[in-house]
């Protein structure tokens, strides 16, 4: 899976591409570990994400918890309908900020 990561000041944007499933989720988790410790706002740009499985949701959940602990904000942008549906069905849209 191709993942681009950009940090400007205290904002980091992570843009994964393709399917986030059992095989590719560890790569996204790896990308998370490169986020600076003092980040104030983390954004996932999901414009090129076609699918997300529970393994992908877990990575986002861990990220959300870490950001909350650090007092930073996390958001997910440009979510495709199929991915939004997964967020809705699993109830994760109730804890994620989807913009």
């Amino acid at each position, binding site marked *: 899976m191709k993942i681009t990561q950009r940090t400007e000041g205290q904002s980091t944007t992570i843009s994964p591409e393709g399917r986030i499933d*059992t095989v590719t989720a560890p790569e996204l988790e790896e990308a998370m570990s490169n986020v600076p410790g003092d980040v104030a706002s983390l954004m996932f740009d999901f414009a090129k994400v076609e699918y997300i499985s*529970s*393994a992908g*949701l*877990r990575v986002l*959940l*861990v990220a959300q*918890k870490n950001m909350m602990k650090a007092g930073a904000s996390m958001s997910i942008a440009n979510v495709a309908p199929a991915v939004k549906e997964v967020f*809705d*069905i*699993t*109830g*994760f849209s*109730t*804890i994620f900020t989807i913009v």
Partner: protein
Amino acid sequence: MTAHRKLVVRLVGAVAVSFAASMALTWILHDHMTSHEAYTLIDSAFRDVEASIYEKVNSRMVRQAMVVRDRLPEMQSQKWWNDPDESSRRLRALADELQVDEICVANADGLLTHSARREEVGALDFRKAEGQAREFAALLDADTEIAQPLMPNSLRGEMVKYVGVWLPSGGFVQVGANEAKLRRLSRTAVTGITHDWHLSGDDGYIVITTALGTVISHSDYRFEGSQWTDPHDDEFYWKKRNIEGFSVYVVVPKRMAIVERQVLVATSALLNGMALVLAAFLVGIVIASYVRSQLRAQREKEMEMATTIQESGIPRVFPPFPNEPRADFFAAMKTARDVGGDFYDFYFSGPRKITFLVADVSGKGVPAALFMMRAKATIKGIAQTSKPVAEVVEEANSALCQDNGANMFVTAWVGEIDLDTGVVSYVNAGHNPPLLLRAGEEAPEYVRTAPGLALGAMDGMKYRSQEIRLEPGDALYLYTDGIVEQPGAQGEQFGEERLAQVVAERCASCRDKADRKSSPMLEAVVAKVMEHRGAVEQADDCTQLLVRYNGENK
């Protein structure tokens, strides 16, 4: 054979293959190099023997030309000398005597004035001639001799050798001999010239034979006079060439052919190095494939274990409540190869109440299976305290958030049916919407209510319960995402629409109250999903639960 022994055998095999490849290459390369060396030697021997034969044959022919020159003053004093017919006849007789087949005389201007061939008299001007004859015009300007090698003569259509000697009175004498005459004339001169002439130590030899193969010169003189037979290619490097009408053979025995020591050492070192690299490469391949197969076996074992854990934890006996006629429960689970952590459950949670649920743990394999056991026990433990379903789910969520360092979570649709009234109180914690099958209606309907968060994800979440009232004959169909998200050949998911369609087609069968053991509808759904996936692998566990409310009046 054990995997370890197989590995050892393969490693030895890899090294043996490398060694054999190196041996074969060494053999081929050395063979090539020795043959190249041998032929270089043979070619250089040919240059020497050719020079030697030329020297002998040329001097033999020049001697004949000189005999003619010596006799010329006497012939010129005869009165027939100026008669072309008679002089040609006389010169022909002289040519026969000298064992040549052509004698001619050119004057100081290069004009052919006398010849054993009558027709040539006056017909050839050497200064203006072309090709082979032109060379002899040099004798008009220099006091010398010229000998040409035996070569094809276009006028006479055969091989001819010409020599010429200058005349003190101007002009020159030219003598020619065809191949057969030349051979006869120079045979004695050539005989034995390769005596003791060896190459490649003492074992290579040079042989000259006549046209019929009689050996007239041999490095070993004892073979002279014998009949020549070509050497065997298996044992000898050899070449044949025709020089001045004689067949010349240069022969080197293969066993004596050698390559320079440095070259030998260098190529051997190189090839040994290559063998080592090849061996390392092959050993690498063997070990990599061994490690891969070990990992695969280990993974398969782990998945087997996960399947065992998962399947041992779910109720398998139908009907589960044979003494309770008011509701029936049917369930089916088809696990994927990479087991996904699905489960279903049902149990009494009060004197007139049964709690039922379908759930799906995030992740796969043994961790998912273990979390499934934990979730199942946690929910059951709380549900059997007869608390309202929303509280059961909230408490279960909090319990599952404790000591959950891996951040696993489980989606669940938890319902509690009141067997007296048919009212189902339920909470959807991040699970797929179930289908409601009303007794009087053909099309089933998805029960879509905004789901709460999957359990174990975040502590302190609030869950709200909702209610559906089932009438006798109504049913609820629960399932996991393994069914709707199964991709087909083109990647398209099975989807809710297809699911609703299969359920609609088969729901009549599920209303058969006589059958309390199994539901053909669940089998039909799995069959459709498997048909949809075709050659694509089953992506996730497919789990279904059908709850039928029969009511009091059975």
